[in-house]
């Protein structure tokens, strides 16, 4: 007997050790449940941060656009007025954000805005020899834009720091055209602009659509190619706190009268998926907890019956009701605690194995797993509480046992 240990602990541990098979089975049950929770939680939070990162790697958190038009005069010739309804969002002729420098300065001054950048985007063709490829071109100022989008980290050759006659192309486009950094390309637009640009960098977004259809050029070059002289098609910004984007977007919209999109609004589906995942995780935790509680309770109910003689003898030799109550609560708590620690360990080993198994051909993981060590603590505390709650009914039963009846057997 360990001198540091109170009476109830000594009894609880001896009882659990003696009923070895019951104890091991119920702990294995709790451990299994906890390992499922650990595994699924890590998987879901990994999935979430992965999706989050993937989205914000390609997209500014706030995009300010010209106001959405219902109709506008398209062309005025002679005395007649021709009205055309604009149905397609992307008109042949691009519209600039009105007084964009003022808007940009205004947004830059707002609290919580970390970076603001002007952007020109439109359509063009890459012409090289016989080949002719349609591309979406984005005109940027690298000083600001590279803080907005994680373009730098996607560069596999050359640099993203472009000037007037440079172009960045995707890996797939470069392969299709058989070009590499330093090679020259001809870029043309529908409005008749044309420029010969040299490839300054090659990027890989991990997405063949983007890799074969996006190109980046300098803002001024894009303005002249797209006939926007001095205009930009959007002003884009990032925030210190990405999840405040929707409220900030609404503030800017109210102040400027421009159309302002937040990444939260444009990815509404993504956010409802996140919510569904969190919800299903909660449901899983609830049912695992309930199952563990029922398991612990049923083992202890049986144990109270099996130990009734011992309980009677303990009561006859001076053990109080409260001590018997604590003895069984403690068995529930210990079962929950040990089971959860074992389960957290198993879950963690399983995660590591998963990391090594679920990999792409190039060795990178298919799922990024995000393991928070605090999960061990939460699991241990949660399972201990579940154990105590589960033990409540059997413990009360044990404490209320009539010792005279128990001893008579």
């Amino acid at each position: 007997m360990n001198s540091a240990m109170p009476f109830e602990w000594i009894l609880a541990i001896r009882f659990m050790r003696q009923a070895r098979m019951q104890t091991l089975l119920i702990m294995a049950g709790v451990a299994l449940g906890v390992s499922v929770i650990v595994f699924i939680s890590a998987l879901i939070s990994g999935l979430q941060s992965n999706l989050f990162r993937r989205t914000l790697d390609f997209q500014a958190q706030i995009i300010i656009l010209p106001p959405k038009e219902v109709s506008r005069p398209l062309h005025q010739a002679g005395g007649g007025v021709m009205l055309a309804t604009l149905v397609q969002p992307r008109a042949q002729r691009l519209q600039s954000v009105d007084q964009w420098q003022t808007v940009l300065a205004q947004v830059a001054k707002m609290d919580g805005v970390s970076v603001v950048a002007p952007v020109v985007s439109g359509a063009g063709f890459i012409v090289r020899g016989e080949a002719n490829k349609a591309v979406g071109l984005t005109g940027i100022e690298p000083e600001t834009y590279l803080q907005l989008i994680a373009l730098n980290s996607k560069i596999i050759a050359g640099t993203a720091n472009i000037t007037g006659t440079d172009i960045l192309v995707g890996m797939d486009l470069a392969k299709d055209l058989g070009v590499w950094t330093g090679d020259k390309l001809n870029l043309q637009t529908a409005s008749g602009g044309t420029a010969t640009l040299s490839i300054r960098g090659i990027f890989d977004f991990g997405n063949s659509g983007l890799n074969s259809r996006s190109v980046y050029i300098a803002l001024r070059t894009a303005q002249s190619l797209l006939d926007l002289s001095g205009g930009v098609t959007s002003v884009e910004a990032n925030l210190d706190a990405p999840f405040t984007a929707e409220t900030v977007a609404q503030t800017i919209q109210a102040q400027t009268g421009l159309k302002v999109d937040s990444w939260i609004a444009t990815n509404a589906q993504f956010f409802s998926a996140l919510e569904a995942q969190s919800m299903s995780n909660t449901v899983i935790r609830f049912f695992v907890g309930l199952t563990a509680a029922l398991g612990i309770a049923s083992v202890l109910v049986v144990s109270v019956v099996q130990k009734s003689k011992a309980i009677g003898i303990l009561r006859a030799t001076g053990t109080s009701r409260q001590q018997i109550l604590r003895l069984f609560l403690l068995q529930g708590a210990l079962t929950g605690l040990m089971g959860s620690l074992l389960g957290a360990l198993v879950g963690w080993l399983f995660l590591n194995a998963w990391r090594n198994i679920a990999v792409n051909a190039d060795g990178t993981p298919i799922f990024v797993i995000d393991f928070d060590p605090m999960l061990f603590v939460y699991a241990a505390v949660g399972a201990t509480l579940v154990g105590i709650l589960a033990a409540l009914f059997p413990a009360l039963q044990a404490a209320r046992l009539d010792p005279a009846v128990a001893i008579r057997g």
Partner: protein
Amino acid sequence: MADFNAITLQLKGIRKAYNIGLPAETEVLHGLDLTIARGEFVALIGPSGSGKSTLLNLIGLLDKPTAGELLITGQPTTQLQDRELTLLRAKAIGFVFQFHNLLPEFTALENVMLPLLAARGRPDEAMRLRAAELIEQVGLTNVGKHMSNDLSGGQQQRVAIARALVMQPALVLADEPTGNLDTKAADNVFDLLRRVNEASDTSFLIVTHDPRLAQRCDRIIELVDGRIDSDKANRVSRP
């Protein structure tokens, strides 16, 4: 030392009924009056079903009488709450049952320590020494470290006696302590009880079916159908 004639146990009109309020209601003990003095060594005999175990459970404060008063070392007990009953039981009463006296999860020595442990909360060296001393006193010096299941029936009863004595109770209640033993082991266990009694003030109330053993007690009480049929002093012939 207190007065030799001090009263260890007093029963006044003790009744016990089971299944109260049900059609099966039966009164098992019908108003018992009984006094046991300090240091008395008393046999309780009677046919099976006469209420001996029921009486022992009442005296041991494991059960409550339906009527009457029960005093342990002068203290009335029927109005006490469970907590106070537990304390009084721990302090004043030692139990020895017929079977399954010991907790199989513990060694012989640890079984003897249990009442001390329950009373004080944590084990200490003094407890261990006290338990070892009693183990020796009951003649089991070498088996203290054995798990209680590994002991013979006679050895288990000796350990149970040591445990019953560990709190130095005023009264030891033994319900057929030798009922499960062969004649030789029964004799030895009985001798042990007798010796402990002679060396201390502790009173003993021993239920037995064996007339030979009853004859070795100072007093023989016979219970028949829940009433005291006879209560006689017995002259013990000592070797």
